[in-house]
């Protein structure tokens, strides 16, 4: 029986990226981060979940912290310590209401057409796909921490 090659474990790394809050810039930042993760050695499942979680979290910063402004600065730090990825977002926009992360709507399928929500899915999905989600406001800055591990990404 031939020996299979040792499982490649992505190394511990950290990188930081800065983006403006416009949707197009956010899209480009997400693409760059996923590219980096692929290069580091994370597979498709990891990248798919990171792509989605980042899109949701960054869209929330853009829409709510920066209220749709195009030139709000968002700092993104990604730390990999396999099998975990930690993402930290920092922005200088408005604080979260009540200093808390919204729960998001749990999906319900018993609603009539007119009542179907067109939003609120974002935080729900982030919560499902992360092991840890934390927010703090410090010195005029929002700091959001998201941790994904191999168990949390399986939910996707």
């Amino acid at each position: 029986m031939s020996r299979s090659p040792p499982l490649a474990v992505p190394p511990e790394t950290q990188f930081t990226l800065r983006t403006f809050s416009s949707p197009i810039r956010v899209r480009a930042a997400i693409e760059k981060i996923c590219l980096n993760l692929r290069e580091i050695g994370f597979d498709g499942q990891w990248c798919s979940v990171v792509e989605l979680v980042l899109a949701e979290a960054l869209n929330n910063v853009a829409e709510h912290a920066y209220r749709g402004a195009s030139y709000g600065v968002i700092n993104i730090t990604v730390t990999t310590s396999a099998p975990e990825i930690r993402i930290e977002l920092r922005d200088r926009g408005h604080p979260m209401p009540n200093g808390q992360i919204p729960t998001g709507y749990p999906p319900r399928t018993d609603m009539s057409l007119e009542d179907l929500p067109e939003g609120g899915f974002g935080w729900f999905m982030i919560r499902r796909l992360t092991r840890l989600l934390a927010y703090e406001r410090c010195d005029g800055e929002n700091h959001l921490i998201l941790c994904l591990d191999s168990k949390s990404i399986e939910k996707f």
Partner: protein
Amino acid sequence: MELVKHSDADRTIIQVVASRIDAAGSIRFKDLMRDEVLNASGTVLVDLSAVNFVDSSGLGAIVAVRKMIGADRDMELAGLTPNVEKVFRLTRMDKVFKIHETPSVTVPTEGL
């Protein structure tokens, strides 16, 4: 993003020619779909086989389109790629929309 529309006997098939329906493109998606949907009759089938990413903005836009079509007509989806299907399943929107398994919808070849 572009939309390609075909009609057959009882339905309108709209192919979404875009790789993403996300925050950067959801407004355009809604605007383009609004034009197509208001001029169509019968069931609207949206072919998403070119789309490999939908986030909550995209999902919200798809729900908005469903509302535009109104309760009197059906809206169905086809060709959901794996990541898109997962988002629908995660949010239980796969129970709200009729989703066809076939990866792409047969469209007439003439005129293409």
